[in-house]
Structure formats: C-alpha cells, structure tokens
C-alpha cells in the first residue's frame, strides 16, 4: 500500500480500467496494419535499401569508398557509432535507473524506450564492424585461443573494452526487455483469435501464466537487472569515451570525458525517446498513457543533462587555457574558429541554448515545440561527436599532414541507412509487440488520482464497480480508502 499525494498529476488519464489498458495496447497488435504505418514502413524500407547498397559498396570495394584519409582516420563512422550508442542509453536509464528511484511514471514509456535501446545499439554496432574493413573476421576481437599465431587480444586497449561493454550492454538490455515482454505476450496470446497468432504468441510468451510465484520471481529478477544495468549503462559510455580519452590527441586527452559523455548520451537519448513517443502516442492513440506530464518530465531530464553537457563544453575550454598546453589550446581555438567553426557553433547552439528553453513551462508542455527541440538536440549531439572526432584529428601535431574531411555518398548512405534500419525495426516492434508495458501500467493504475478505488465520488462514469456477487454481499474487508 502506498500513499500518493492528491496534488500529484495522474499517471494515466481517462479513467482507464484494467481491461481498457489491455484493449488500448493490444488494439494495434490485433488490427490490420493501417495505411500510415505502411507508409512509414515503406520509407524506412527504402532507407534500409540505401543501407544495404552502401554496405555492399563498402564490402566490395573496401573502406576507400569512405571519405577517410591518412589524417582523419575516424570520422562519420565513429561519430555515428557514438551517436547511436548514446541514444540507446535513455532506454536503460528509464527502465533501470528510474525503476530504482521508484519513478512510477516510467511504466508507460519503458517498453518503447528499451526497444529503442536495442535497435540503437544494433545500428551502432554496424559502424565499428564495417570499419574493420573485413567484417567476416570480426570474431578476432574476442579472446579466442587462435590458430593465427599465439597472440591474445590486448586487454589494455579501450577498443577491446568497448567490445566487452557493447556486447554485455546489448545482451543484457535484450534479456531485460524480453523478460518484461513475456507477461504481455501472454496477454496477447490469451486474446489471439487466429491460429498463427496463437502459436506465435504462445512461443513468445514462454508459457507465462501469471502465477503469483512467477510474479514474485519476476519482480526479483527485474530489480536485480535494474540494479546491475545502472552501473552498466554508466560504464558503457564511460568506456566509449575512453576510446578517446586514453589517447594523446589534443582535444581527446581529457579526464572530463566519462561523465561528460554519459550526460550527453542521456541527453540525446531522451531527445530520441521524445521524438519517438510524440509520434507513437498519436499514431496509436495512446495519449492517455503517454500524457503531457510524461513529456514535461522527459523535457526536464533533457534540460538537466543538456545543462551538464553545456557546463562540460565550457569546462573543456577553461581547462585548455588553464593547462597552458599550447597544443590543447590550439585544438580548442581551432574548433571554435577554424575551418570547422560551423560544426562547433551548430553544436553549441543546439546543445547549450536549446535545452535552456525548457525552463519555460509553456515550452515544456507544448507538443510541437518539444518535437522540434528533440530533433534539434539529436542534430546537435551528432555534431558534438563530429566536432570531438574530426576537429581533433584533422590538424594533428604535424602541420604538413593537416587535412580536411569530406564525406562520400557512401558515408552518407550508411548513416541514413542506419536510420532506415532503426525505424524498420521500431515500426515492426510497434506493430507486433505491445508498445506499452501493460502489466506494469495496470500495477500503477490505482496509484493515480482519478482512477481505481481511490474514487471519491465526483465522477460517476469512472466509478469502479465493487466486487458484488449474486445474492452474496461484497462483505470482504475491502480497503477502499487507501488514499483517504
């Protein structure tokens, strides 16, 4: 039993019953695909085609298809890798960190956010693997007792840490997400009419029946997965930042990188969650579950993490001056005023100024403005990674090797293609899987003010029916005044 302040906004609006939740979430799973979904999927598949073409060109002709040169050896590939991994972090933050902090509002958005994590990590993984040049030898990154010599992998290398971090993160997120899906698959299974749906969801639901013993263990498992996913998600972007921070490249060799990268990851991730949720809630008519309060709360997290990122940018600049290292100073002056000034100032505008608009309540509660802000933040965070990677590399210690980077059509194709891959996966998920965690939403339904037995008598339409039986009065000691 839990006390909820009556001044708190309801988590779910519209006076939903348990059955309404099932209906609302299962609706698009059971209905035939609608025209808007098909149109969106067509666009996503078209972009996926671009992805496959670009990957084919990369594999057939080699990395020379990309715009990389001897000086700028990392550019769009690693930019995109870091961008996608960062986006993924919001999903884990919502499902794990907010679970530990007992933020019940997360229940409406955690499923879709976790799906986003998984698909974003899949997109991210494409880049380092393709960058290997010979992806069919990708297994060389694992510590296998090899037959190619007696060498083992180098455990001192941050790139190898990345292999462990990303694969752990991906598999753990997948398991966390799937375990959460199992009870909802059971709900769909028990409602399924068609023989294919019956068998498919029976297989997916792993024989879940919702027995009290299973729920008890399920809750334990969720809590521990959340507990270990929290340090995990922090470790992943920390390790990604160490790919840069452990080098001696001016502009990379910074101790601020781990916290700065983690904040940036959550910042961009929440922007992407907002982009996706604002579309999903309208397309699937889930406005009662993903309410304006959810949007405002996510905006606040975006603002906080965005401000941390802004402080980090300024700190970097200050430390470059304070360190009195001329190379470090040059790297930062070059970022702001050199040939890539436009990338730097795009980053500063999008990431430092935009989130500050969220201080205004009107912006925070406006759906069109939030949507625009979330897109701007996503663009800004892409530029952040581009600035960190390319502007640090393109003018190194040796002025004779200074160079510029310009992407080829294949670079652009792979990037745009991963967006297609991401949306293809997300749209398939949104159609065939429950986009909202039904079980968890039902569990918090009563903790909302305008719902359940907290009913105080002002709205006769939403009054819950007490359990009456034929002939026998409902004499059970029902505590209907839980929230007095």
């Amino acid at each position, binding site marked *: 039993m839990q006390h909820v302040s009556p001044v708190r906004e309801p988590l779910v609006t519209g006076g939903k019953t*348990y059955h309404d939740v099932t209906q609302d979430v299962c609706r698009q799973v059971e209905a035939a695909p609608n025209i808007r979904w098909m149109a969106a999927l067509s666009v996503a598949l078209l972009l996926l085609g671009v992805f496959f073409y670009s990957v084919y060109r990369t594999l057939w002709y080699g990395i020379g298809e990309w715009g990389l040169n001897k000086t700028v050896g990392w550019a769009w590939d690693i930019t995109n890798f870091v961008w996608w991994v960062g986006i993924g972090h919001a999903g884990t933050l919502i499902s794990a960190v907010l679970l530990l902090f007992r933020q019940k509002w997360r229940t409406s958005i955690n499923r879709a956010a976790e799906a986003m994590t998984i698909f974003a990590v899949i997109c991210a993984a494409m880049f380092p693997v393709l960058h290997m040049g010979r992806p069919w030898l990708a297994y060389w990154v694992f510590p296998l007792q090899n037959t190619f010599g007696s060498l083992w992998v180098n455990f001192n290398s941050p790139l190898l840490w990345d292999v462990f971090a990303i694969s752990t993160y991906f598999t*753990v997120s997948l398991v966390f997400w799937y375990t959460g899906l199992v009870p909802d698959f059971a709900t769909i299974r028990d409602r399924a009419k068609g023989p294919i749906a019956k068998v498919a969801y029976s297989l997916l639901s*792993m024989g879940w029946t919702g027995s009290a013993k299973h729920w008890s263990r399920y809750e334990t*498992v969720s809590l521990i997965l959340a507990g270990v996913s929290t340090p995990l998600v922090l470790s992943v972007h920390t390790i990604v930042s160490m790919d840069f921070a452990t080098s001696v490249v001016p502009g990379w060799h910074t101790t601020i990188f781990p916290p700065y990268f983690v904040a940036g990851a959550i910042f961009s991730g929440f922007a992407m969650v907002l982009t996706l949720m604002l579309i999903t809630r309208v397309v699937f008519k889930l406005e009662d579950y993903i309410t304006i309060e959810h949007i405002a709360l996510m905006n606040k997290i975006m603002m906080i993490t965005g401000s941390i990122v802004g402080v980090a940018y300024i700190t970097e600049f200050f430390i470059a001056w304070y360190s009195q290292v001329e190379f470090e100073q040059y790297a930062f002056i070059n970022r702001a005023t050199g040939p890539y000034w436009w990338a730097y100032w795009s980053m500063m505008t999008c990431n430092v100024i935009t989130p500050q608009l969220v201080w205004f309540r009107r912006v925070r509660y406006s759906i069109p403005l939030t949507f625009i802000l979330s897109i701007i933040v996503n663009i800004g965070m892409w530029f952040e990674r581009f600035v960190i990677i390319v502007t640090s590399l393109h003018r190194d210690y040796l002025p004779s090797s200074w160079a510029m980077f310009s992407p080829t059509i294949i670079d652009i194709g792979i990037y745009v293609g991963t967006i297609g891959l991401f949306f293809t996966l997300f749209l398939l998920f949104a159609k065939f899987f429950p986009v909202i965690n039904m079980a968890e939403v039902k569990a918090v339904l009563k903790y909302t003010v305008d719902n359940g037995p907290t009913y105080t008598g002002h709205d006769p339409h939403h009054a819950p029916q007490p*359990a009456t039986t034929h002939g026998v009065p409902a004499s059970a000691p029902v505590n209907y005044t839980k929230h007095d």
Partner: protein
Amino acid sequence: MTKRFALGIFDDEDVLLHAVENVREAGVKIYEVFTPFPIHGIDDALGIERSRLPIAAFFFGLTGLAFALWLQIYTLGFDWPMIIGGKPHIALPAFIPVSFELTVLFCCHGMVITFYTISKLYPRWKTPVLDVRSTDDKFVMAIEVNESTDMTKLTQILRENGASEVNQKEMSKF
C-alpha cells in the same frame, strides 16, 4: 494426469489479497493465484518464500569476475606476456573495465537463465491457462479439488470473500 480446479474469479486485487488470507485461514489450500500484474503483499499472504535468485545472481557475478581476472592475468601475464606501452604485464587497473563487464554479463544471464529454468518457462506451442482473463483484468484463485470436496461450502467461502464468479475446470497438463 488430470487435475480438477475450483476457480475463484476476483475483479480487484485488494479483494483478492484479503480473500487469500481469509481462504487460507478457513483451512483451504490454495493451489495457485493467477494475476495480470504483480501484487505486493501476495507473497506473504500465500506463504511464498522469498526467492533466492539474488544469492544466485551474486555467485554468478562472482564467477564472471573470477573468470575475467583469470582470463586477463593468464593471457597477458603468463601465456604470452607482451610489453604494452612499457606497462607491467599484469596491469590491474587496465583490467577493471573488462572485469566489470564480465561480472555483469555472467550475473544477468546466469540469473535470467536460472529464473526461466526454475519457473519452467520455455517456448510452447500451446499454453495451458486456467482462465484466459487472468492475463487481462481478472484475478484467479485456483484451488485443487476432487470428488470428496464439498463444492457448496468452497463456493460459499469464495463468494463470501468477494469472488465475482466461481468456476470449475479440468486440466490435463498442468
């Protein structure tokens, strides 16, 4: 083996929670309770023991940590020692990230596999369910019955404790 069940169907989890306590007090053995979402306090009401999965998770994590340390120390320290950046062969601070990741990897997967195994959850073509509404909005209390059970009395107890329906169902594979 076919089992027969009396099913008390409840519309509200608080009603069910009290019913569980009262029914057990009345000396009726509850076979299982099926609910659409986890209900806090039902473990105590049903007398379900606290899961030992956290202990398992801890030891899985410990295994992962031990494996990671062994792997890194053995490969870089003993099997093929190399000088990397003038650092010691066994550079423990550099081994922290991989050790942490493998700890988490073993802990999560070990625990989840254990969870699915002990709960006998695996993909099935057809899932036997006593009442399909128990994954939607009903709370189902299943009580195993046989010929000698006094159904009238049982129905009376369930009804008095707020059950909206009392059904009977036979299940062969359960």
